[in-house]
């Protein structure tokens, strides 16, 4: 397995009086797509938000490329090279598609080759380039959210349920886009409820339940083991399809 770019060790997170993460341990290898699976309420979104510093870990350590980022503020974590696409997508609806991209490129204008690569992944965005992002459909907003995360080179992408609520045709487009991102060597930690999408895309997999990691390993092994799927996720890939 490749060297871990991100390493969580005994991470606990409290939100108000609620104890959400109970000692989360896992590693995301560099250059791979790691799937983070689990039922609703398992703590997947909290894990991503804790890595981003949007919620502070109450104990444990988060190391990114060997550096402890547990207590860092969100802007510092982003500047360290972590891109984040929240479940709500977080696009700026009043800004145009172009302005959303411009804002994401902190270091200056996006070079044209990268822009063409991004718009090649998400061609629909080109049509709406100068329109307010609020006018886009749900799938197009998701494309914009991901395009924004890759507007400049990032070392790690955290993406929260990108296929949620999308039409099947849009899910297929999204899967193709992630395949292209993988081929480009991006390191991705992807939260996903769609097990079919997860099985197609994932190199490694982490399964969470009740705020804990209950399984981690190679995605292909989980895909091949129906009993393990049923035990961890409550269904098998066959039933999901």
């Amino acid at each position, binding site marked *: 397995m490749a060297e871990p770019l991100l390493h969580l060790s005994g991470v606990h997170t409290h939100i108000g009086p609620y104890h959400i993460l109970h000692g989360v341990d896992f590693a995301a290898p560099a250059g791979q797509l790691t799937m983070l699976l689990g039922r609703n309420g398992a703590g997947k979104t909290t894990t991503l938000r804790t890595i*981003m510093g*949007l919620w502070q870990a109450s104990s444990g350590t988060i190391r990114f490329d060997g550096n402890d980022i547990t207590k860092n*503020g*969100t*802007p510092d974590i*982003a*500047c360290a090279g972590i891109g*984040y696409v*929240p479940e709500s997508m*977080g*696009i*700026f*609806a*009043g*800004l*145009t598609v*172009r*302005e959303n*991209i*411009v*804002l*994401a*490129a*902190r270091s*200056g*204008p*996006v070079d*044209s080759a990268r*822009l*063409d690569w991004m*718009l090649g992944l998400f061609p629909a965005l*080109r*049509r*709406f*380039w*100068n*329109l*307010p992002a*609020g006018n886009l459909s749900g799938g197009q907003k998701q494309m914009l959210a991901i395009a*924004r995360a890759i507007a400049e080179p990032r070392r790690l992408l955290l993406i929260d349920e990108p296929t949620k609520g999308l039409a099947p045709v849009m899910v297929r487009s999204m899967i193709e886009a992630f395949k292209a991102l993988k081929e480009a060597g991006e390191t991705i930690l992807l939260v996903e409820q769609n097990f079919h999408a997860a099985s197609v895309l994932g190199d490694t997999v982490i399964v969470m339940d009740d705020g804990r990691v209950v399984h981690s390993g190679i995605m292909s092994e989980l895909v091949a083991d129906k009993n393990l799927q049923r035990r961890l996720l409550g269904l098998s890939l066959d039933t999901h399809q």
Partner: protein
Amino acid sequence: MTGTTVEPSAPSEPLPRTRTDWLPLLLVPALALLALPLVGSGSTWATLTVAGLAMGMMIFLMASGLTLVFGLMDIINFGHGVFISLGAYASLLVLGPLAGWAQSDSVWLNLALLLFCILAAMGVTGTVGAVFERIIVRPVYGSHLKQILVTMGGLIVAEQAIHAIWGASPIPIPLPATLRGALIIGDVVMERYRLVAVGIGLVVFVGMQLLLNRTRIGLLIRAGVENPEMVEALGYRIRRLFVSVFVAGSALAGLGGVMWAFYRQTLTAGMGMEVMVLVFIVIIIGGLGSVGGCFVGSVLVALVANYVGFIEPKLALISNILVMALVLIWRPQGLFPVARR
């Protein structure tokens, strides 16, 4: 735009254009045209319209900072009025040493005096704004009730501080010599100072629009109004932006305060608080956080007040509330709603 020259290579089909929301903008000329037959005399109508525009600009100057603070920081700053008063009083720092300029027959010296008063006011209110944000506002981010209580408290303390420094009696501040009186064109009477106010209001409005729409900092402010958490997740320090906007908002209130003070030609510590009802009305009409909406709302409210005051004086007092009610029935989030998180 700095760093925003990004354009994709030519698309295979024409890009759709952004649709501009013209309806709220058409309200102002529609209102003016509607008032013309009701007022009766064309010259009276023109006089009322110019006076209304000037009043609208002054309200805009006082309100524009608050709408940004409200929209970006989600802060209900009832203390905004004190920056209006403080700005007005800060002009005394200039009017004392440069009293001779006010009596000069040179229009340039008079305008320079006004400019120095504005700069002094913006400097003082911007600095006090930074302290106000740090000590009073920052501990109550996220709690509207506490914000109302603590900023009201700040307002009362600051008003008393003004009394302690400059005294409780009203202080007269006469207009510079060449800004007094009116230009008379035909039967239309236009007060010189009001024309200056229209000019300054337009300059500030255009400046703010350029800043918000043509610069990266403007882009950040607009994005921060919608979703501050996501702005941070993109690597920007929203707290710094918050403080900068609060300081700018306070400085704009100071600018509005100077213009308002010369219009009234009297300084009182409560002059900012007195105008706060109007300020809140225009930022609600415009849509919280929208500078364009604040501008249109200010002009609308001022024109309606002028026309109604002439046509049916008994209704003048409630005309602002009536305008707000009608706008909110039509557009519950204001004329130009800003997308919210």
